[in-house]
């Protein structure tokens, strides 16, 4: 448990908008260990998404160093980055980003299509297994528009799992969901973290969601201002039970 999966040193990200330069990240240092479940918190505009996109190799930092699983990302070509995303990372978006008119199963299979080593039989088996682990095996032939928001997000989580990544990155994965569904998704993440030992980095600005993780990193204005271990960690499955009956139906 003492191996660093993510190591970020003095990382900066500037956006140029017209003549203005927006300093989204001003020099962030981070270290996330294998098996951790980390919540990144902070006010809107503090740079959480920017940080996560860089961690997910979806965007490049302006300056600084980022090591993922011991690999220095700055040295990699576009194709190597694509391979890295394909094999080591799973990304869950706030808006699900599923392919429309494409079955849940095919959506989950998608990352494996871009991995030549995986044959079609294995691809399908792994996709089904991933859907089972998010509790949607019975919905695998449904299209996204035939699924609820929570179910769509589960499909997206299954997709992020299917390549057996070293880190799952989630940007406000519960942001579009109601309380009960949010807890259900968090329960899933907690299970992936504790049972399968997945490292998870989770962006949220909801304090009660953050209390379900093991460590919180708080951003402000492009800086990390505080890091804290969650002392009284909550369990999502218990939270679900304690929800007032009927709230979901309202």
């Amino acid at each position, binding site marked *: 448990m003492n191996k660093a999966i993510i190591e970020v040193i003095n990382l900066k990200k500037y956006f140029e908008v017209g003549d203005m330069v927006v300093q989204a990240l001003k020099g962030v240092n981070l270290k996330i260990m294998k098996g951790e479940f980390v919540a990144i918190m902070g006010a809107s505009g503090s740079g959480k998404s920017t940080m996560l996109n860089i961690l997910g190799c979806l965007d*490049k930092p302006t300056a600084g160093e980022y090591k993922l699983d011991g690999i220095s990302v700055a040295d990699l070509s576009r194709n190597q980055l694509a391979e890295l995303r394909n*094999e080591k990372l799973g990304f869950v978006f706030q808006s699900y980003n599923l392919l429309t008119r494409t079955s849940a199963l095919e959506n989950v299979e998608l990352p494996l299509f*871009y991995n030549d080593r995986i044959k079609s039989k294995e691809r399908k088996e792994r996709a089904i297994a991933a859907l089972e682990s998010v509790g949607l095996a019975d919905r695998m032939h449904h299209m996204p528009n035939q699924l609820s928001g929570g179910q769509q997000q589960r499909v997206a989580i299954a*997709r992020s799992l299917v390549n057996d990544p070293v880190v799952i990155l989630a940007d406000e994965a519960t942001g579009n969901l109601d309380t009960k569904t949010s807890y259900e998704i968090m329960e899933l993440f907690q299970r992936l973290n504790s049972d399968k030992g997945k490292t998870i980095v989770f962006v949220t600005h909801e304090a009660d969601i953050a209390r379900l993780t093991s460590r919180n990193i708080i951003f402000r204005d492009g800086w990390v201002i505080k890091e804290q271990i969650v002392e009284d960690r909550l369990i999502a499955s218990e939270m679900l039970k304690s929800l007032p009956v009927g709230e979901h139906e309202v």
Partner: protein
Amino acid sequence: MNYFNLLRIAKNALMRNKFRAFLTMLGIIIGVASVIAMLGIGQGSKKSIQDQVASMGSNMVFIMPGSQQRGGVMMGNSSSQSLKLADLDAIKQQCVNVSAVSPEVRTSGQVVFGNENWPTSIYGSNTEYLDIKKFGIESGRMFTDREITSLAKVCLIGKTIIEKILPKGMDPIGQTIRFKNIPMKVIGVLKEKGENSFGQDQDDLLIAPYTTVQRRFLAIDYIQGIFTSAISESKADAAIEEIQAVMRKQHKISKPEDDDFRVMSQSELIKTFTSVSDILTTLLGAIAGISLLVGGIGIMNIMYVSVTERTREIGLRMSIGGKGRDILMQFLIESTLLSVVGGVVGILFGYLISAVVGSMMGWPVVIMTQSVVVSFFVCSAIGIFFGWYPAKKASNLNPIDALRYE
């Protein structure tokens, strides 16, 4: 990335948006089909004119009275009486490239049998006329030289007139019909020739000895045209020159611009008429070009409209590990599939339209290889380019920028 996977991805992406795929293909189909059909129709009409004119006798050379210009002054009607029987004899004797010669005089009027009547034309000629103009006799016989000398009131009859004025089933041979009130005995029936490409019914005529038409119907002693056969199609030009020389000697004309006659060959006639249909073809070609443009713009539109959606899709594909070249290949395969399928369907449609129009108009179906090749390649090129280009741009973005594209 293996190609089987890419093909599956491309196929799935197309199936996911069948309507878009259909619209893109429609642009290509319209573009290709219209070019092929338009040019096919133009060429078909040209070919049919050529065939028709050739069926009137491709080695035919004929002389018409021509407007006579003296010092720029039109000499008016006198020129229309410029052809004489003496000219005919001179041509017959002096032109080695000419094998048959016949005068032609004609007039129109009502033909009557019993209570039926029908407006038609009578053509006066000698015995060689049928061969020169490629008429055949179905039953009965041609008139004889004796009948020509005696101004006999005999005629050959076309199928249309039989249909219009004779009772069904009656044998026309031996019947007496009246043309312009003069009784004419039918001695032969002409073989059916059908309409020519100008819609003129070639079976709506009577043929009689030229003397009969000259004296009994018109009371003239000149002739209205001289029809000849060159000894072969390739000698038609030589025949024209010979005839011109003979005619100038006959008419005592020293300069060609003083000619009071015109000598034309069937092949020249073909050129005259096909030049008309060449204009038609050019016009249709222009329309086809516009359709191609419209089809092309349609393709661009569809491709462009779907860029936003597809850029996000590209962002997603990149974020889960798709490489730039995988994505480009996918889009290239997609747009190539659409273009090729659309192109092939377009070719079939173009052929079908040409065939339908051709069969309605009685034209042969002419499909020009160039129109197929050009339209296919132009449409495919547009389709493939506009499928590929946005993908190229999108796959150069950072995945996150492609995902957020709007």
